[in-house]
């Protein structure tokens, strides 16, 4: 027998209702009473109750324009339907979202919206995460009553370096226009013409080329704006999403890695009001390409492939000479996670080293724009500093490498300020995910996982420690860097052992006073976008 539980009814209280706090407002939506902060709009208030009022133009991170009219609701004592995104809640307001009037409004709006929409789903990149598809199926799901030819507009309009526009698919919600204004401060998009000839376009001679332009693709509720980078590469509903943090610069924008077949296909921003709100920069989105390029899949000794055991032994032998003479340097990496750096710094400390070096990419002052982009393009400078300080190690930049040094144990594939010839003359052992730059001079190169392939944390320029989750396994024999450090420690008879990144994190938080309170979040299970509904 069907035992569907009825939705909880708002029970009328015979006594006086609980007094509303001064900063809150009490209203009733579809029979449910709710208290929300003053100034909230009806759409957000309904969302708190789990009622998803349909909307196209509303986006929580953008100014409200009430343009699409999809979110119309009826409010008692109000003769006309009101756009719930623009309607601010009032004390005692009674809202209906499922009454015949607003249901019909939603249905008819969708019928209008689909009137000129092309039959593109099979070739549209947005299909599967499309707001229009979702709202039509949930709120209309009826055939069109109009049989006129669709208005034809331009398809595949090149808007700029990263974006292609399909004017036929556009439903004129203006989210992208407001996104450009909001994220970059540049008004590069606008509408032209009127009626059903109205199109989205760039002003004459202009290009959509601001450094945050790809956010318009994320907010587009249909497939009008598509990313040249992602276009026709992978169907959105086949991807899995794993939460992570962008490794493109010191801001540490929260992102989702969208991956399939052990490969990342795109990065999209994840909402975090304290860091990046709903946005990220275009440059950060493209960092995933690096996960597949020039990867070191197996250990090498003197440039030739070697198994783990031989490579670790060779590394220990290479380092033994410099270590015994005290002419030995450990180089941390501002590009690697806190855990990896902490493991290596702990090994250095156990070996009696008093100062360590840090290597990272040189800053790009032109990047800094006072928004999300900053000059420091290393994700973890702050973390390395905090760790070195906590372990009592003096931290120097890599270009100050002591001339007397004979052996180097380095993390990462950058070593600014150190000549290749000099590195080649040293007993240079490197833990690296990529095979490039100074790695070719290494006596021993040990493959490690890149940022998207291992669990760990990074510290952004505001000192915020953020968690990255492993989206897919590293290529070949590569291991997490802390694990390689543990193997090196064991090969050199150093007492150092962890079996999980969580343990490294625990020891690290015990050592760094500012991180005392931090806890290790549960591993995130990849979310299948197919069942995640619309993302537009």
């Amino acid at each position, binding site marked *: *027998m*069907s035992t*569907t*539980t009825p939705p909880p009814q708002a029970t009328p209280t015979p006594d006086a209702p609980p007094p509303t706090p001064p900063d809150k407002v009490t209203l009733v939506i579809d029979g449910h009473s709710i208290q929300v902060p003053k100034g909230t709009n009806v759409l957000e208030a309904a969302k708190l109750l789990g009622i998803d009022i349909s909307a196209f133009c509303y986006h929580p991170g953008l100014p409200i324009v009430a343009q699409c009219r999809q979110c119309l609701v009826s409010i008692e004592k109000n003769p006309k339907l009101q756009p719930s995104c623009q309607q601010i809640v009032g004390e005692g307001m009674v809202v209906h979202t499922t009454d015949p009037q607003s249901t019909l409004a939603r249905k008819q709006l969708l019928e209008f919206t689909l009137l000129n929409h092309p039959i593109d*789903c099979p070739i549209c990149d947005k299909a599967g995460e499309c707001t229009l598809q979702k709202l039509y*199926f949930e709120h209309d*799901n009826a*055939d*069109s009553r109009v049989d006129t030819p669709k208005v034809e507009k331009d398809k595949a309009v090149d808007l700029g370096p990263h974006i292609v526009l399909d004017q036929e698919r556009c439903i004129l919600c203006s989210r992208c226009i407001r996104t450009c204004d909001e994220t970059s401060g540049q008004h590069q998009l606008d509408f032209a013409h009127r009626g059903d000839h109205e199109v989205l376009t760039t002003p004459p001679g202009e290009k959509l080329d601001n450094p945050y332009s790809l956010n318009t693709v994320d907010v587009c509720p249909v497939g009008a704006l598509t990313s040249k980078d992602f276009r026709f590469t992978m169907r959105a*509903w086949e991807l899995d999403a794993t939460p992570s943090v962008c490794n493109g610069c010191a801001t540490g924008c929260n992102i989702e890695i969208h991956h399939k077949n052990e490969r990342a296909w795109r990065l999209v921003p994840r909402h975090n009001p304290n860091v990046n709100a709903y946005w990220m920069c275009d440059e950060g989105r493209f960092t995933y390409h690096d996960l597949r390029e020039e990867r070191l899949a197996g250990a090498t000794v003197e440039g030739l492939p070697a198994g783990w055991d031989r490579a670790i032994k060779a590394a220990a032998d290479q380092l033994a000479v410099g270590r015994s003479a005290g002419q030995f340097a450990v180089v941390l990496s501002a590009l690697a996670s806190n855990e990896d750096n902490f493991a290596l710094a702990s090994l250095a400390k156990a070996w009696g080293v008093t100062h360590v070096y840090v290597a990272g990419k040189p800053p790009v002052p032109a990047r800094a724009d006072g928004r999300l982009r900053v000059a420091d393009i290393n994700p973890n400078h702050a973390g390395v500093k905090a760790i070195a300080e906590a372990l009592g190690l003096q931290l120097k930049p890599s270009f100050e490498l002591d001339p007397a040094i004979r052996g180097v144990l380095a993390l990462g594939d950058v070593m600014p300020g150190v000549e290749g010839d000099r590195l080649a003359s040293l007993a240079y052992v490197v833990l690296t995910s990529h095979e490039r730059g100074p790695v070719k001079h290494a006596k021993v190169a040990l493959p490690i996982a890149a940022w998207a392939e291992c669990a760990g944390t990074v510290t952004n320029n505001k000192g915020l420690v953020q968690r990255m989750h492993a989206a897919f396994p590293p290529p070949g024999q590569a291991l997490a860097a802390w694990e390689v450090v543990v193997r090196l420690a064991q090969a050199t008879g150093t007492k150092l052992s962890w079996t999980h990144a969580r343990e490294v994190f625990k020891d690290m938080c015990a050592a760094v006073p500012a991180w005392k309170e931090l806890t290790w979040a549960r591993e995130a299970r990849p979310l299948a976008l197919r069942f995640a509904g619309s993302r537009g």
Partner: protein
Amino acid sequence: MADAQSLRQLVLGRKDVQDLSDNETELPPDLMTVNMGPSHPAMHGTVRIVLTVDGEKVVKSDVQPGYLHRCFEKESEHATYTQIFPYTDRLNYVSPMINNVGWAMVAEKLMGIGKDIPKRAEYIRVIVSEMSRITDHLTCVGASAMELGAFGPFLFFLKGREWLYELLETVSGARLTHTYVRVGGVNKDLPAGFSDKLTHTLNEIEKVMVEVEGLLNANKIFRDRMAGIGAMTREDAIATGCVGPIARACGVDYDVRKDYPYSIYPEVEFDVPVGTHGDCLDRYLVRVEEIKQSIRILRQCLKQIPDGRIMIDDPRCALPPKVDTYNTIESMIRHFKHIVDGIKVPAGETYAFVEGGNGELGFFVVADGTGRPYKAYVRSPSFVHLSTAGQLIHNHLIADIVPIFGMINMIGGECDK
């Protein structure tokens, strides 16, 4: 010498004949443990029985299913309601159409459209279900007879089954894994000339039945091997949850088609045969009679089937016509959402059941309002019947395991779910 002898003993697992002393040549009085299955010609599906035998007599048995674990229930949580139809084909793979109907009914019950299925679709569902029931019983009876040495009836019955499979292939496109029924109706209409072909096939099958019954019913060997073997009382059948032909052979007058009538079964006339002894012979006779009753139902259905839609006219679960899918955006989106997200079944939980080849086949589904079940459970008759196998073979000879197992008709795909 002692070493060589004990080595031989180790290898053989027993002493060699010439090493036995005189008093050892008698049969050993100890109990022996033997394995039957999981892969054994007389085991239907992969099931293992650890037997403790006293000579030829079974004194203890441990029936161990699970070697064919197909993860039906877990897989169902990751597939849309429509995508689960192919999985149900593989439950009782001898009568997949009935499983299809059961699964469609549970989704329809949750959506509250169970009463709105077009009449023609309901008739088609019953036609293909009854054809499947015949194939199920033909296989069970034929295979069991073969295992008792009667190879002829097996060939005759499989000939008849093949005629039905060919017809079902013209209906669904697949000989065995039909995936024909859909939530809200069926996939496509019956092919042209189906009625004549089925009528002809039914006539032919009746001739085969006469032949086979002539070979088996009064056959002394067959009767000796079946009568009184694996008998179960009516009370035991009810207590253990037996259903279908097994329960009916014990005298339990329970048939879902009569007791909880679904689809258009109230509109056709048929009788439910019951046995008196509850032994293998009764199970055989009940199945043979059910084949005849199914033929009777089919003839009525072919007469009464109306014209009309074969799919409910409800955009929530009916795919739009292909021509609309390619030519209108509304149908394109609906088609896309049906395929990618699945049919949205409202939150709730329910149990729907049909009379399968082996008895009551039920699906219990907890829906969470998405396109996939939150939890799907299948009440498979084979699993329940197999739980009685240990009792049924108790105190019988090893050779009797074969007819008992044959008549339980355990289907691995359904039993191990």
